[in-house]
């Protein structure tokens, strides 16, 4: 694949963004269907090129396109370029593929929105940023795209900016991820300083791999850098404790959620850890990564148990599944984590799009006003059931295989290597699997089964009765299947949710597909990725050194570890039984009525309240930290400092300059001779200065 083609993967959506944002919006208006077609065409082009890139990588191994000079001043040499390795290729296909389906679906979902053009413009920008993120070769380049992803997600979450809640959610998402990005930036800065006294350009990711492989970075140094990068990942992937933005981000259009909260933006954090996996392996933060991931997996799932909004259920499940991936990376299960990312992208996008379809019919996202939709929308129902089964991890859907690999590796870590963290991850994974199955089927049963409860009209009616403000975002109720434009992506994603798990990474050889094909593909690299390219002649001597270390490369081993876990019948059985148990429990509570949800809620009212209030994290962050600690103390102190010092100094300074100016104004008295005198004095000063210091 030639380099211009590789750049075109990013370039096409960028072109769509620019055209939509400028020419098309100005000439064809803010509701033109052309905007949608243009973005779809651009993303389709990217998708085709991504598939080409994937086949290219599969056939010929990864390609490192040459670096280009970006900024070159003394002490700062920055390059940029495309790194097309296995991870990138998979991410490219996932991102552009899901994006394509979502764009297609959005034609109907966003139909008639008064900012249709703006929507497609931002979607193109977002897709371009994400594609740029995964292809970045330089960490600074990566950071730029990372921030572009952040800003375009801000624009998309706050797409309906006339709703205060959407504007607040966008702001929250932006600020919360900013906390993480701050750490990311610190990590980059530290890496930058380390780079000053290390041969080779560490900002260039392949070179970084090379240097780490040769043991060029001390564990303590790697720890700090990895910690910073992990902070960025925590923010972007909504891990505990920066998880609160993601459920709120559901204020954006559902198609946006399907794109950025399933396959793209939130997985950027996982991608970041995967991209710098060698660095994490060389550091001491792996256990922290695993623990944060494990905690988030259970913690987020528990909040999903009681959420009433179907999109929030999906949001919590996303956080939980991201926790799965992160903990997998933490225990060194690189390939399983990427595998789970891959499968999760499809079924979660499908579920979100299904939620959008449900909203299309019922006009609301509140599950308590749904029910009985199964009869009206068969396609949506079945695709969502498939997605939920896959998410719950039921044999033989794709979610089962990826989740099982993570659990198996965790088990191996615990039993074979005797690591406590392995057991913790295993328990957390099983617990999360149980809860996931329960809340997903709670959602399915509440939405599609039982009696219809009135949809948007009923919700508005109830709000009026209880003197509550009318809920925002309610649509019209027309209980029928969504148009084919929306159903087709659902079907495609459901099909992927069924088959992709086993077919891509099968246990035995299946026809032309080799055993563990996906894991092999992700982890086995040909050597040229680690060929040291000299790093702009920074240190010639290092070239030889790299050659001598050629056979000491440990990276493939690090990545390869846990790539092909042996299928473990007990683990698979336990997780399947737990998932089935969760589904049965949901059935018992919401269909057969053996256990009354209301009674459960009363009996465990304390727990229920805590869960429903999301562990009071919003209250903690907003009430305690933001208002009391920050406004009350820090901001107060800063205000005092600002008024008494900064302002005062400014006032005095301005007085001083004012007086000085008035004094100077007297100098300009219109007397020519006074001017001449000043000139003469200046002349004398220059003359004597020249006599004293000159020559």
């Amino acid at each position, binding site marked *: 694949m030639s380099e211009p083609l590789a750049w075109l993967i990013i370039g096409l959506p960028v072109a769509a963004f620019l055209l939509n944002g400028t020419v098309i919006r100005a000439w064809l208006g803010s509701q033109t269907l052309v905007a949608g077609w243009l973005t779809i065409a651009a993303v389709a082009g990217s998708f085709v090129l991504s598939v080409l890139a994937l086949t290219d990588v599969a056939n010929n191994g990864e390609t490192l396109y040459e670096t280009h000079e970006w900024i070159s001043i003394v002490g700062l040499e920055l390059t940029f370029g495309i790194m097309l390795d296995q991870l990138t290729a998979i991410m490219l296909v996932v991102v552009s593929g899901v994006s394509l389906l979502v764009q297609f679906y959005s034609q109907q979902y966003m139909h008639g929105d008064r900012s249709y053009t703006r929507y497609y413009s931002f979607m193109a920008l977002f897709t371009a940023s994400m594609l740029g993120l995964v292809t970045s070769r330089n960490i600074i380049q990566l950071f730029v795209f990372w921030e572009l992803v952040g800003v375009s997600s801000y624009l998309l979450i706050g797409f309906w900016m006339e709703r205060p809640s959407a504007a607040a959610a966008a702001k929250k998402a932006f600020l919360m991820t900013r906390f993480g990005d701050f750490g990311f930036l610190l990590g980059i800065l530290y890496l930058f300083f380390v780079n000053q006294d290390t041969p080779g350009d560490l900002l260039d990711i392949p070179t970084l791999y090379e240097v780490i492989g040769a043991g060029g970075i001390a564990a303590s140094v790697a720890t700090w850098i990895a910690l910073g990068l992990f902070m960025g990942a925590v923010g972007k992937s909504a891990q505990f404790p920066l998880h609160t933005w993601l459920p709120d981000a559901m204020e954006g259009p559902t198609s946006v959620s399907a794109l950025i909260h399933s396959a793209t933006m939130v997985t950027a954090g996982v991608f970041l850890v995967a991209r710098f996996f060698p660095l994490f392996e060389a550091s001491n933060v792996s256990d922290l990564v695993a623990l944060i991931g494990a905690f988030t997996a259970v913690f987020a799932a528990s909040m999903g148990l009681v959420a009433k909004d179907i999109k929030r259920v999906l949001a919590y499940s996303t956080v939980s599944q991201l926790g799965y991936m992160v903990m997998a990376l933490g225990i060194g299960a690189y390939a399983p984590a990427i595998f789970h990312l891959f499968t999760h992208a499809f079924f979660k996008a499908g579920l979100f799009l299904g939620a959008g379809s449900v909203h299309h019919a019922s006009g609301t996202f509140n599950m308590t006003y749904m029910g009985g939709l199964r009869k009206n929308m068969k396609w949506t129902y079945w695709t969502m059931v498939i997605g939920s089964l896959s998410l719950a991890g039921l044999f033989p859907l794709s979610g089962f295989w990826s989740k099982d690999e993570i659990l198996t590796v965790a088990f191996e870590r615990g039993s074979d290597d005797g690591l406590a963290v392995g057991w913790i991850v295993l328990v957390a994974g099983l617990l999360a699997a149980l809860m996931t199955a329960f809340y997903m089927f709670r959602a399915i049963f509440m939405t599609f089964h039982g009696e219809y409860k009135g949809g948007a009209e009923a919700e508005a009616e109830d709000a009026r009765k209880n003197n509550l403000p009318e809920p925002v975002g309610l649509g019209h109720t027309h209980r029928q299947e969504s148009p084919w434009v929306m159903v087709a992506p659902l079907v495609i994603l459901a099909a992927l949710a069924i088959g992709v798990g086993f077919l891509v990474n099968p246990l035995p050889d299946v026809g032309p597909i080799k055993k563990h094909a996906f894991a092999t593909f992700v982890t086995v690299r040909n050597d040229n990725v680690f060929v040291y390219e000299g790093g702009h002649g920074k240190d010639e001597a290092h070239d030889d050194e790299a050659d001598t270390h050629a056979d000491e490369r440990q990276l493939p081993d690090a990545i390869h570890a846990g790539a092909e876990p042996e299928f473990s019948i007990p683990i698979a059985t336990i997780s399947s039984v737990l998932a089935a148990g969760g589904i049965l429990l949901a059935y018992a509570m919401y269909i057969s009525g053996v256990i009354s949800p209301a009674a459960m809620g009363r009996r465990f009212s304390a727990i229920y309240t805590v869960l429903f209030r999301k562990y009071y994290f919003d209250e903690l962050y907003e009430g305690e930290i933001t208002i009391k600690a920050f406004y009350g103390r820090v901001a107060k102190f800063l205000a005092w400092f600002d008024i008494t010092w900064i302002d005062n100094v400014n006032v005095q300074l301005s007085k001083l300059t004012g007086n000085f100016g008035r004094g100077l104004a007297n100098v300009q008295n219109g007397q020519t001779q006074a001017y001449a*005198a000043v000139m*003469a004095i200046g002349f004398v000063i220059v003359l*004597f200065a020249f*006599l004293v210091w000159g020559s």
Partner: protein
Amino acid sequence: MNETFEASGIVTFAFWVTSAITIAAAVMVVTVRDVFKAAVFLAGSFIGVSAIFFLLNAEFVGVVQILVYVGAVSILIAFSVMMITDVSRGSQPSRARYASVTVAALVVAAIAITAYNTDWTLNEDLTDPAAIAGLAGEFVEEELESGEGRITSTDGLGITPDTVVQTGVLHDSTGTIGGLLLREFVLPFETVGLVIVAALIGGLALMRPRRHEPDSRGGG
């Protein structure tokens, strides 16, 4: 003037006398209350300066000085003084005298220090004829025979046979200066002509009686 005459010290003596007279006249110009008297002293100072030019073997410049300054500028100023009645009652006393004296004294000191502390002999590189010719314009390299101190071969070089070289000093160089003005420096020469015309026209424009001038003098 011949060598012995110059070496005899008479030139030096004459220089100091002339300089003293010139400086004295200049001092009178800037101190005397009556502006008309100042104009007269100015004319005297101009004559002194032209004498210095003659002593520096710059006959042409000296004559120009007399013609332009003594003959024209002084007379012009004298007439102006007489036409402006206000002046005849005498210039107001000078102001900021001590400050001005200080500044002037500092300038003299600086010039004197510079003059006496600098090695004024030309750098060998700068005396390279090619370099100098490059400064002056087109490069014409032809050696002149200076037999008996008189330049003999001058065909087409803009140097008149009158110009005499004597112990490193050029005499009777008027013709050569004319050649320089009309050859190498013809462009500045014409430009100066333009400047003078512009000054003339500007002066006329300023002095032209204004018709229909409204009674809003000083109103802006």
